[in-house]
């Protein structure tokens, strides 16, 4: 299987590459939307700022090809790579997102402004019976913006920020899975999620 990693000139590209390589995948790094036809699955990494990421995708004509890709093939969006599928993002000004998920990306308004470290995911919906991750498994987060969903229907798991605030941790819709946490940096649990993604929607 050919897995592509979208390089939008930010990202923890090395980490995502290494995580996939350790799982026996030889990822293809994508800088050109034309190359999307050569891969079966796409991963869009995190570690970036919303505005410069969306500007890059627009300037390099990635938006429409990504939407087209998503009709037939699975995409995993990690952290910012997930957030850009919302309709609007508010980091460094307002940017229009890809719009696949009805929601907006806003700054955390909790006491601690950055959610950095490991948190448990409370699963509220089963994406697929093949996803074998125990409820309340922990994953690594590093963000200060979160996705606020219009409809909870697309949310498979939540995570807490503090005692009073929860955010969507895993969302999915059609061929898209997005995680607010970093599976590539979440040791065993992260690897399980990545392996699930490689086999997801495969006959």
């Amino acid at each position: 299987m050919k897995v592509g990693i979208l390089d939008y000139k930010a990202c923890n590209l090395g980490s995502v590459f290494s995580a996939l390589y350790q799982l026996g995948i030889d990822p293809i790094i994508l800088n050109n939307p034309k190359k999307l036809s050569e891969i079966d699955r796409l991963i869009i990494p995190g570690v970036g700022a919303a505005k410069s990421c969306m500007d890059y995708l627009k300037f390099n004509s990635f938006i429409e090809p990504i939407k087209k890709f998503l009709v037939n093939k699975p995409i995993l969006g990690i952290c910012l790579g997930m957030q850009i599928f919302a309709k609007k993002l508010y980091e460094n000004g307002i940017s229009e997102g890809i719009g696949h998920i009805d929601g907006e990306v806003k700054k955390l308004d909790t006491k601690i402004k950055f959610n950095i470290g490991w948190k448990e995911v409370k699963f509220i919906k089963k994406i697929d019976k093949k996803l074998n991750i125990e409820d309340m498994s922990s994953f690594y987060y590093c963000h200060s913006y979160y996705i606020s969903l219009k409809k909870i229907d697309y949310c498979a798991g939540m995570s807490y920020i503090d005692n009073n605030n929860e955010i969507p941790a895993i969302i999915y819709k059609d061929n898209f899975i997005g995680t607010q946490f970093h599976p590539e940096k979440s040791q065993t649990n992260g690897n399980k999620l990545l392996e699930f993604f490689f086999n997801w929607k495969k006959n």
Partner: protein
Amino acid sequence: MNFIRIIPSLLLSNKKLVKGKKFTNHINAGYPSSTCLALEGQKCDEIFLIDLDSYKNDKDPDFDTLNEISKNISTPITFGGGIKNIEQVKKAFKLGADKIYLSQILFRNKKIISKIKDIYGCQSIVAGINIITNDQKLYLLEDEKKNIDILDHIKSLIGCGVGEIKVTFVNNEGSENGMNIELAKKIISNTDLPIIFEGGLGNIEQIIDMIKIGANSFAIGSMITFKDYNIFKIKQHLFNKGYKVRF
């Protein structure tokens, strides 16, 4: 309740790990890649990797070792040591860093923060504060002549756009005599960013003393390098005392 974060603090010099006391007398502490693999096996929560040579010389930090480590583990890596420009930051992210640690450069060029912030986001920047206490006065390792107001200093770093702060108690570093609790308390109650504390930890009780005042993230050097502790053991003891840790 949040997990207590236990973060090995690893220093690189000449492609080897080293460890010293109060930032001097560094001795060999092992091979980077295999050490990190072992630390991941012990369920460390993150790894701090700081290259010492690039502080002293004007050369690039050790990207090769960063990349070699990254290929073998899936634990978050904060990379730093003598980072001077945005090109080095880009290279680090490309080769396996997940966050960037900045310390010395913040005294010469705070503008680098906004450059990183615009591309990678504030959450990717960890600012290092190396505090020296002398006669009730506070100084920074980088400028021992000028005493500072620590809260003002932190405020200005937050204003520039850093997402996390690592406070190192230089006097306590390598001493295993515990951390500066009073100072930590003052910093915690006046800061709304995640703070990692380093310098002075030698046993579990000293970690618990810090947790009691609200600290929850610790960078650990001597305790795992020179003593009979490992990450798993530290976490197990904390768990036994009723604190929340991840296995």
